[in-house]
């Protein structure tokens, strides 16, 4: 079964006085179960808008979105996905533990069960010592880890992430990427991950979806699964196949409107 299927999705924003922005046009995309797919493109190309269609935080002007074979709306009502935004979006008046248990509390999970789950999640993101801290007492990277733990709280089979590492420094960012890879391998969740960092997209993803702005379209999709025998670990960052993936995505991004993936030679 597919986790996400978009077909012919178009989103037009009417911005008053008869003006309109075509944020998404003719988007066809499927994401398999357990698959990690990144969306990459210059800012304003509709990455967030695309993610919001999947999350049912916004609805397409035309086309269909299905999540685990249901409508996006039904999937949202069934709590089928976890979500993390660029801003951690923690509730500042709640402790770290209370932030993570928010979805559990809202969905009526029993207190003791929720507490045990929160403890588990805190350990997973390495913040066990900060359960009783408040968000304003944490660094940006730690806050983002709390947000990720919150997104994972209900063990969703789909994780939606909108530039979750955008505000982090390079070192923290690479560490978080490795943690995310580990977490995804453990949970087997499918991920739709928005970024504008090419190495990040290649490192994390099975496939990278390259988008172009005005109107927001998919320019091409690059398969970035490491070759057999290469683990998605620190060594992968120095591997030939990683460089190759980076190069391919970059060419596609810069070509802007190529429809099939250039393989280096013909692109210039």
């Amino acid at each position, binding site marked *: 079964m597919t986790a996400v299927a978009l077909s012919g999705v178009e989103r037009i924003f009417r911005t008053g006085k008869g003006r309109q922005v075509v944020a998404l046009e003719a988007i066809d995309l499927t994401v398999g179960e357990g698959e990690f797919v990144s969306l990459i493109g210059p800012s304003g190309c509709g990455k967030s808008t695309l993610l919001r269609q999947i999350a049912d935080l916004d609805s397409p002007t035309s086309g269909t979105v299905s999540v685990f074979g249901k409508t996006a709306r039904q999937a949202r009502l069934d709590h089928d996905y976890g979500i993390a*935004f660029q801003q951690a979006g923690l509730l500042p*008046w709640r402790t770290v533990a209370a932030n993570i248990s928010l979805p559990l509390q809202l969905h009526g999970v029993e207190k003791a069960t929720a507490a045990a789950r929160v403890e588990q999640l805190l350990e997973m993101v390495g913040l066990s010592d900060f359960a009783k801290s408040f968000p304003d007492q944490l660094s940006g990277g730690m806050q983002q880890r709390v947000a990720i733990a919150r997104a994972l709280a209900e063990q969703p089979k789909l994780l939606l992430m909108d530039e979750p590492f955008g505000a982090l420094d390079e070192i923290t960012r690479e560490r978080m990427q490795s943690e995310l890879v580990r977490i995804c391998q453990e949970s087997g969740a499918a991920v739709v991950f928005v970024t504008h960092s090419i190495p990040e997209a290649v490192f994390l993803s099975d496939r990278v979806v390259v988008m172009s702005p005005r109107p927001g379209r998919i320019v091409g999709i690059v398969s970035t699964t490491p070759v057999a025998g290469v683990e998605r670990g620190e060594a992968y960052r120095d591997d030939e196949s990683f460089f190759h993936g980076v190069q391919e995505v970059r060419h596609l991004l810069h070509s802007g409107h190529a429809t099939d993936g250039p393989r280096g030679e013909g692109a210039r």
Partner: protein
Amino acid sequence: MTSLPGQRAPVSKVTAVVAPIVLGAALIALWQLLVRAFHIHDTIVPAPSDIWHQLTEEHTLIFDTTRKTGWNALQGLVIGTVVGIVGALLAHGVRVLREMAAPIVVAVSVMPIVALGPVLYGLFGGMTDTARIVVAGIAVAIPVYLNTLRGLQQVRAVHRDLMLAYSSTPWQRTWAVTLPTATPYLFTGLRIGSSLAVISALITEYFGGPSDGLGFTINNEAKSGAFALAWAAVVGSIVLGLIFYIVTYAVERWFARHR
């Protein structure tokens, strides 16, 4: 400790407390000196020592009148706060109400509310404190209403998206996000209102009502030439105002500590 050029050393807590006290004491000493040196008559301004004398001599009177005014102000504060919060919740929930209320709120907030004093004594009778409490209540309700309403509208887009993603009910959104977001704003309104409550309750006493309270005492003693005693009552009103302010300020700080 080293500090970079252009960077000021933070003021230590001791300095922050001691400096104003020293300044205050110096001003009072200067005041005392000037009154004595130029033989200023106490109808113009009494010496601090005379005021102090009245404060100790008449401490029962000062304490009782302060308590009386304080109690009226407190009742007004509680009633006004409840009215302000309920009003803000209604206005936030029902758009039509908000729009209907807007011009009335503007009108009331620019009106000097104590001017209602004489009218309200007529309405509720001059033998009760009702008029004083009502005036204080109206004075408090306005800033509490305005600040709470503003607070209710401060919910961040990312929090709204999050709660939508969780398919939360409107009631869940209210208690989990909207109310906690609004709380610090509410207490800012309460802090502003607390000063207004004291001022309003006190000044309304000038216009009538029972023969007690700080405002009545100041007015009465000044008229009968007991200026030092009138000033002692002024000191009582300063203390009362400070108590209201400090308590509500502390509450406000407490609720805004994790932002």
